[in-house]
């Protein structure tokens, strides 16, 4: 299938002339990204349709993960590396964008080379605060501390410094600063939106009314 030109793109290169075609061009762009890129962004940059980019991304993802089953009728025609073993890296869709990561299995080896930027494990207090903010966002510090039963000011400050949460404006009623999680948080969690967080309800047995109950209790 020939990639079609988007209306907004002045000219799409003819990828047939390139070694590896449009897929390799996409791969070349993925190599220079320093933050996750969305499909629209990649499509616009490459002069391809979003659908075509989506197909190519999925194909690259499968290739990097290694094909295990062989499809004999395709074998001779295909040049996508069928039957190959997994690569040392993977392509993942995280926080709404695609990006190349080293494969988790090699963490100990890769970690020796990229010590910088690796963050220490969060404390229990930080994790709990982060959890409350993630599930109740946007949320004020007062509410978070109501749920946790302790003052959370310094933990909130640290989480903001680590780029995991950010200011989300003020509460129209109380004027308190509200907090939400950042896309860096999603990235660190390896998910593309907060909707992918595990459901809270199974951990809250039979407490349907708790939100109102709780709200009535806040100042």
């Amino acid at each position, binding site marked *: 299938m020939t990639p079609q030109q988007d209306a907004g793109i002045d000219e799409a290169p003819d990828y047939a002339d390139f070694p590896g075609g449009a897929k390799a061009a996409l791969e070349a762009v*993925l190599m*220079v*990204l*320093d*933050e996750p890129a969305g499909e629209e962004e990649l499509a616009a940059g490459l002069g391809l349709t979003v659908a075509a980019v989506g197909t190519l991304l999925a194909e690259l993802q499968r290739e990097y993960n290694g094909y295990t089953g062989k499809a004999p009728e395709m074998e001779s025609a295909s040049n996508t590396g069928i039957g190959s073993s997994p690569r040392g*890296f*993977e392509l*993942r869709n995280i926080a709404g964008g695609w*990006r*190349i*990561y*080293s*494969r*988790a299995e090699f*963490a100990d080896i890769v*970690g020796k080379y*990229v010590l910088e930027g*690796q*963050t220490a*494990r*969060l*404390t*229990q*207090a930080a*994790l*709990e605060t*982060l*959890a*409350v903010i993630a*599930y109740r966002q946007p949320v004020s*510090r*007062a*509410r*978070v*501390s*109501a*749920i*946790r*039963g*302790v*003052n959370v*000011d310094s933990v909130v400050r640290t989480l903001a410094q680590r780029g995991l949460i950010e200011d989300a404006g003020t509460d129209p009623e109380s*004027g*308190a*600063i509200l907090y939400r999680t950042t896309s860096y948080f999603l990235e*660190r*969690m*390896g998910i593309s939106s907060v909707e992918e*967080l*595990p459901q*809270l309800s199974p*951990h*809250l*047995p039979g*407490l349907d009314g*708790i939100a109102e*109950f*709780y709200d009535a209790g*806040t*100042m």
Partner: protein
Amino acid sequence: MAESKPGFEVRLANFTGPFDLLLGLIAKHQLDITEVAIATVTDEFIKYIRKLQQLGEEWALDEASEFLVIAATLLDLKAARLLPAGEVEDDEDIALLEARDLLFARLLQYKAFKQVAGILGETLHQEGRRFPRQVALEEHFAAMLPELVWKHTPQQFAALAEAALRPKTPEEPPRVALGHLHGSNVSVKEQARLLGLRLQQESPLTFRSLIADAGSTLVVVARFLALLELFRDRAVSFDQLSPLAELAIHWTAQGREWSAENLSEEYEEQL
């Protein structure tokens, strides 16, 4: 987890707040809240504090005061739980029941967040094993970047640095965090002053009469804590003929200069 060693194995420093400790204690004792023996927990706590002292560590006032809050909460929960359900007679009983439900609900909510926090922590750890490719731009591309537009004078730049380096003023006016309360601010010190005045006029008084005019459970807890503080200051003594009998409080600070101002400030933050 904490089963291997004797003594107060629940190290308070490892808990992140009263709910956390409460959950820990309930789980540890595998008991319904009504069966948590405060005396056992207290004994363990005192043992723990003594051990800290032997080790030459600071007498942790924070831990002790937090423990008092928790003990009071436990007592409160327990008292509410022990109320015969069929015999709700007055507003006080209903208030106690409501307080109990609220506490349980909040405890369960906290438990749920604690569980998902565990999942989050595990996910973050696992995800930390993948490293994103985020390399410097290849030189020939970096060379293509448009020349930087720079319009800042050194003075403007210094002003920028001043602003960036200035300590961030707290976004909200500084105040004691009360978010975790389900009532208004109650000061232990204030309650102590009030109890002191009352006991100086008439002594002994029963605990029941001292809390008769308390508007909320929180005030009862505050007065209870205030009495403990007064006891520590040797301003009052307690007198109870038998367990669960009427508790009488005697004023023993006669002739001595006594002021609520000397009380510890810790509770101002705790309550």
